[in-house]
């Protein structure tokens, strides 16, 4: 059993222990979950430090590290050929940073779960199963395995939102589930199509191996998604383009893009704080990761044709999300919409198909991962105390909660892209990439870069305005004295979670090479892969 398997299945041990322990020991569940997540985080950190930055990843096995390759399902299906499904794990520059991020955000989520009291056994075991699925998604290199983890991820989330959520939790939970499932069942059809189009050059069997799918030489001639002589059309669109579009939408729902984002505010508002943290910190990145790992790498030819539209969708998400955030009166909704806006940068960066743009997109994902987690945690702090997060119900919180205000201010400034913080690096690289795109010839016009900068401006507007509305001025609270006494400043546990997160934002803002070094060769390899089709 390799390190990656250990990383993925460590939380499963925690689930088993939690399920087996009697309810009289319910207070120990969170410590078990915490212990295993710390172990997982340490392991992820160790792997990150051991990663060989020169490995190119993406489409060659040798470019991946910590590879585990076991055959899982081998079946002879007669006319359908030989079924070849592998337990195939590996990480490259794209997946490893996200893996480390996931371990970090999971740790934050466990920290934020400290005050949960309702059915602890179910809560922590579901959280740990979610952890397994998320880790699996980022490691899987077999499409079947990827799909299994991708779907398994939905189930614990449904229950986490549905049981521990707010007033409209049933609606939010099923909406989230339906949106994602809608994307993924059609993804399944494309997976089946790819399966029949690709053969393993070594065995001649059809395969779900993603790396084989990235190599045009492995495509069967005249197959549905084949490269050469492919005149297959569905509804007048060429087969490879339709495959790209279906996969893109499956992942874009997760990102989320406008207009498929409407599940996100609902899910965030109804979800308990830890689940919001995981949603924003990890799950949105699954979408971005999927687009890079699968849409771009398996369908580079279609991606090149469609990237103008991708860029446009990115721009719309940035601007529309920001404008919506400006209009929100619920603090959590505001942050949810800011996520839509910030994830738009990821899409724009990917669409630029330049090394700067894709690196920027990756960096933006990492940075948004822990910054949005911190923001949701901060909302959770205030919600825990007075069970309200309506912006206009608070005023002048500075005098009541000075430390809290300090953290909020730093988190807001970091998120709006102040130089010196990580979000700045991500957004700047995306905009540089988009700007350069025209000279490289990838077809993203310069006005998109300008529109992207407008998004940064808007995000400054809504963050600063919120800061002004809630924290400055004379103290005036809707709940009066009762609230004033309930609103105590941050405690040790909360600071212990927030401080490293914001310190990380600063650290990565000052030394971005911590991420870029490991990312670079994979990005260059991907760009080279795509460039052939420009």
């Amino acid at each position, binding site marked *: 059993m390799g390190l990656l398997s250990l990383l993925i299945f460590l939380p499963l041990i925690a689930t088993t222990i939690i399920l087996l322990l009697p309810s009289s020991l319910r207070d120990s569940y969170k410590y078990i979950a915490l212990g295993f997540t710390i172990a997982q985080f340490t392991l992820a950190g160790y792997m990150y430090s051991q990663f060989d930055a020169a490995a190119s990843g993406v489409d060659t096995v040798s470019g991946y590290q910590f590879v585990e390759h076991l055959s899982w399902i081998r079946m002879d299906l007669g006319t359908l050929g030989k079924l070849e499904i592998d337990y195939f794990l590996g990480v490259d520059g794209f997946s490893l940073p996200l893996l480390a991020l996931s371990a970090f955000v999971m740790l934050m989520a466990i920290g934020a779960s400290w005050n949960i009291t309702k*059915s602890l056994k179910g809560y922590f075991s579901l959280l740990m199963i979610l952890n397994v699925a998320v880790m699996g998604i980022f490691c899987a290199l077999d499409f079947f395995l990827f799909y299994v983890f991708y779907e398994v991820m939905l189930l614990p989330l449904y229950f986490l939102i549905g*049981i521990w959520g707010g007033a409209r939790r049933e609606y939010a939970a099923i909406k989230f*589930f339906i949106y994602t499932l809608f994307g993924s069942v059609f993804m399944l059809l494309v997976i089946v199509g790819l399966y*029949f189009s690709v053969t393993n050059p070594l065995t001649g069997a059809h395969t779900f191996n993603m790396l084989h799918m990235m190599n045009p030489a492995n495509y069967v001639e005249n*197959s549905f998604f084949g490269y050469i002589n492919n005149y297959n059309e569905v509804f007048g669109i060429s087969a490879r383009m339709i495959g790209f579009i279906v996969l893109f939408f499956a992942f874009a729902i997760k990102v989320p893009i406008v207009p498929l984002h409407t599940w996100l505010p609902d899910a965030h508002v109804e979800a308990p704080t830890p689940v919001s943290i995981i949603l924003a910190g990890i799950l949105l990145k699954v979408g971005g990761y999927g687009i890079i790992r699968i849409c771009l790498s398996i369908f580079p030819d279609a991606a090149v044709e469609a990237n103008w539209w991708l860029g446009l969708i990115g721009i719309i998400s940035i601007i529309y999300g920001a404008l919506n955030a400006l209009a929100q009166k619920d603090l959590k909704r505001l942050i949810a919409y800011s996520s839509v806006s910030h994830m738009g940068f990821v899409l724009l960066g990917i669409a630029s198909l330049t090394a700067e743009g894709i690196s920027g997109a990756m960096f933006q994902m990492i940075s948004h991962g822990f910054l949005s987690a911190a923001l949701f945690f901060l909302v959770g702090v205030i919600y825990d105390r007075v069970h309200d997060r309506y912006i206009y119900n608070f005023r002048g919180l500075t005098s009541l909660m000075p430390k809290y205000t300090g953290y909020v201010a730093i988190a807001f400034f970091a998120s709006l892209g102040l130089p010196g913080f990580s979000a700045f690096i991500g957004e700047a690289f995306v905009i540089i990439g988009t700007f350069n795109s025209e000279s490289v010839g990838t077809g993203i016009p310069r006005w998109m870069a300008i529109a992207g900068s407008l998004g940064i401006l808007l995000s400054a507007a809504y963050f600063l305005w919120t800061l002004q509305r809630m924290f400055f001025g004379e103290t005036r609270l809707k709940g009066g004295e009762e609230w004033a006494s309930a609103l105590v400043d941050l405690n040790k546990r909360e600071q212990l979670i927030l401080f490293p997160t914001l310190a990380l934002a600063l650290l990565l803002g000052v030394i971005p090479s911590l991420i870029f070094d490991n990312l670079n060769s994979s990005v260059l390899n991907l760009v080279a892969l795509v460039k052939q089709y420009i």
Partner: protein
Amino acid sequence: MNDVALHLSETLDHILASIPQFKPEFALIIVFLFSIIATLFTDRFWKQSSFFVSIIGYIISFFSLLPQLHQPTSGFFGMLVIDDFSVFARGIIVFALLVSTIFIQQHFKSKISQKNLGDVYTVLLTAGLGLNLLTITTNWLLVFIAIETLSISSYILVGYFSENKKQSEAAMKYVLFGAVCSAVMLYGLSLLYGFTGNLDFTSSAHIQGLTAAPQVMTTIALLFVFTGIGFKLSFVPFHAWAPDVYEGAPTPVTAFLSTVPKVGAIVLLARVTQAWTTSLFYFGELTILFITVVAIITMLAGNLIALRQHNMKRMMAYSSIGHTGFLLMAVLVAPSGDPAILLFYLCAYVLMNLAAFAFIDALEQKTGATELESYAGLGKKMPIIFTGFTFIGISLIGLPPTVGFVGKLLVFSSVFERHQSSGDLPYLALLITGALTSVISLFYYFKIPLYAFLRGGQSEQNNHASVTLIVVIGIILTSLVFGIGIFPDLLLGLFK
């Protein structure tokens, strides 16, 4: 005279030689007789004697099946066709019958009923006989006899326990609907016989006759025949009886009705489809077109109507109609001579449905209701049952890591392969409908955890969650659903 006598001895020899091939069914017939005797005489002293007789019968029948594996043969002048397909199908049938019998025994254990349970086991055995016959024949006459044997047994099972007006109505509806469908089918068969002079639907005389006959008449005859099969499979538009009967019948009988007859009917349909679609004549295309259209409509109708149901058993009825549509899709693309994927999906379907009804029955015994609303807040009191039930729901939707997902993936693969090789748009339509209805089905299957876990119920009643045999069976089936979902080659390898 001499001539006849000569033939007679040859005929007798042939019949005697054919008997060993009839062993599994023969076992059922013998046990059927024993079961009657047990019901009449020994049940008075030992109440469970007829139950154990039929259990032993199924086990004997199962073991006499095993020697037939990989020994394709035919007997009784071509009336019986024994191949691996039928061996596996009968294996599934016998397994499902065994489980259903245990369900019935457990269900009525605690109830004081005036009715004699022994009769039910006996009737179940004849149903098994009919089903077995259905899977091993290509002769329309025997098909009709098998369908009638099965139908009449089913009528009795549904009507036997009717206690109130609703249940009697369900039984009555079932009988009337069934009788009409049988009559129509018989008429269709008589037309087929008139055109061809041959009742074996795989024979070349049959196919030639169909080609020579007027196209309109052949079409009508085929549609009539499909009516009879459609009734047993309950695809749209012959599904109307299913919800009422499923709701009205006792839960274990519903468990039987929703799974076992479908296996037999699907096997038959697969044989007919393979025989006709491999010939290049218009009725082959007609059959494909008919099954495609019916599959799409059945998937959509079953899943959409299920959304509006509040009774768990009614919901399962529509869910099984939806799955029938999916099974039709699997039938359509099952390559001749290699029904592994079809068998896998049938097996998955049987496992999932039996498990679902095991949980429904367990809950019915504890709460006395099958309404979805009555499950509200029970998740915390009976975590094992509802966790299992949720898993079955996930499998019925077709999400990993369950057997339902693998089944769906395999069927999608075969349909896709057909689309790729033929480029026909109907296959694409089937794929899209299949995917879309999976999403739709999420809404209603997730009503189970929605009520059980997400909604709070009134907590005044205190059901102590004792673990009964039926729950244990449900859990075993659920773990099979889960285990085969992760390692599908365990089951799929069996069908090779």
